[in-house]
């Protein structure tokens, strides 16, 4: 436990000593703000045109804005998660510090756990910071906080799955740039695979739709917490971590 904590702390420091943390935070918050504004402007347009037509269908503004925000956040994370995981193992391999890590009493699983927890912590920091864009809603209206919470919960699971994938890929190479691109590429494929699902029929279609990393997010954003989606993301993360573990083991055999 002490080992995991030590590695977690070192990773956190290394995020915030290097520019990575600030770049990721800045991009994330800027885009969140931008899309929040965009989403709101869109709603204003809709309500104006509705008023001109004479009809008045009530719009739950806070609800619409937050669900729009969550959907764009998911897209932004697709780009940012690779930056959070790129250095986790590849940097250690490049600098030779992996040789230190694996010759001290730290086990592979502890090294993995410490690093994974650090990246999860950073994810939580991102979400906490993004609350700045959502808080004004509470000032000017009374949004239902439950779907917001379940949305964040879903986003966390989604992020955790992508982080595990990135962690695995960073064990494969000592080049951070390669790690970024492969992680991004694989995540993107898992994202757009849903489009392929539209052309498929029968069970192929449902399998493809099940694999899509984004499809499982919708219910959370709507405020529905469905165990099947939780199982999907947790399994995804678990597979990523397991592959990372095996990859660390095999690295020792290959030398």
């Amino acid at each position, binding site marked *: 436990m*002490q*080992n995991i*904590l*030590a*590695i977690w*702390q*070192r990773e956190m*420091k*290394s995020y915030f*000593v*290097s520019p990575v943390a600030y770049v990721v935070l800045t991009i994330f918050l800027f885009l969140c703000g931008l899309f929040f504004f965009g989403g709101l402007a869109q709603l204003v347009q809709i309500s104006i045109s509705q008023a001109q037509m004479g009809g008045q269908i009530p719009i739950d503004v806070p609800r619409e804005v937050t669900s729009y925000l969550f959907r764009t956040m998911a897209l932004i994370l697709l780009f940012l998660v690779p930056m959070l995981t790129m250095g986790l193992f590849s940097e250690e391999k490049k*600098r*030779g*510090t*992996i*040789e*230190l*890590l*694996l*010759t*001290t*009493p*730290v*086990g592979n699983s502890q090294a993995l756990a410490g690093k994974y927890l650090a990246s999860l912590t950073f994810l939580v920091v991102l979400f906490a910071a993004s609350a700045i864009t959502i808080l004004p809603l509470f000032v000017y209206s009374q949004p239902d906080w439950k779907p917001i919470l379940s949305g964040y919960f879903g986003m966390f699971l989604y992020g955790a799955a992508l982080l595990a994938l990135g962690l695995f890929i960073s064990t494969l190479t000592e080049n951070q740039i390669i790690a970024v691109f492969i992680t991004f590429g694989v995540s993107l494929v898992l994202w757009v695979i849903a489009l392929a699902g539209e052309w498929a029929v029968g069970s192929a279609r449902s399998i493809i739709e099940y694999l899509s990393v984004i499809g499982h997010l919708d219910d959370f954003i709507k405020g529905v917490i469905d165990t099947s989606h939780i199982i999907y993301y947790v399994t995804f993360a678990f597979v990523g971590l397991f592959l990372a573990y095996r990859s660390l083991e095999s690295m*020792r*055999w290959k*030398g």
Partner: protein
Amino acid sequence: MIEVEHVSKVYNGRRAVDDISFRVEKGEVLGFLGPNGAGKTTTMRILTCYMPSTEGTARIAGYDVFEDSIEVRRRIGYLPENPPLYMEMTVESYLDFVARIKGVRPRQRKSQVNDVIEKCNLGDVRSRITGKLSKGYKQRVGLAQALLNNPEVLILDEPTLGLDPKQIYDIRTLIKGLAENHTVILSTHILPEVSMTCNRVVIINKGKVVAMDTPDGLARQMAGAERVSLTVEGPADVVRDKLASIDGVLNVQASDPATETSTTYTVECKLGSDLRSTLAAAVVTQGWGLLDLHGVSMSLEDVFINLITKE
């Protein structure tokens, strides 16, 4: 303390280490000598549990490096060829981190870190970023890291690589001092280092052990004979015949070219016999002038070149 038995390592079909066996007793400093690519680093990586061997077993303090890897790791300090530094950390926070992952108790951490900082003379740079340090300091931080948690066995891969002469001297002195409380294996391709710091030498080439002895013993064993060099004023041929006729002399070689009046001879004598006074007496009773006489020992360098160029 360290037992290596028939260890081999195969990489992509190439035998990087081929059936190596040796032992290191407690308190010994073993020098691991060999040209680049001889298998030194691979052997050390096997000993430190970084990679498993393909064949054979290695034990440290009675624990198998493969079966009881965690127990072994608790007992070793390892300095890899490139000091494993996190470039963005300060020396002090880096050492504190290593102390933590090595399982040093929280209460002792501060004092242990201070201790190794003092031992490795890092006081001036303790709050500097490791990435900005000179090569010599980086190496010393790497060594300090290996000393944390006071391991029984120290495994140092080329500890003096890339240092200037003064730093090399300092590190060697430090390593000698460590031998009191630790068992040390160090690898190097610099010969004087071995004769200065090690009790015993293993010479390895192309993955195989080609010789193993004390530095002195190795020099003697390789020479196969005691050698005496003497410079005599007198008729060259006669002197040579006379010297060759002395009991115990195996071979006499006159150096070439000789000066006008004197010639230098290298006399090989039977191992273990000291013929210096006999040789001197023989020369003097003939009425020749004895200008110089001294024993010649083969340097470790000669031994090394001899061994690794044999094939």
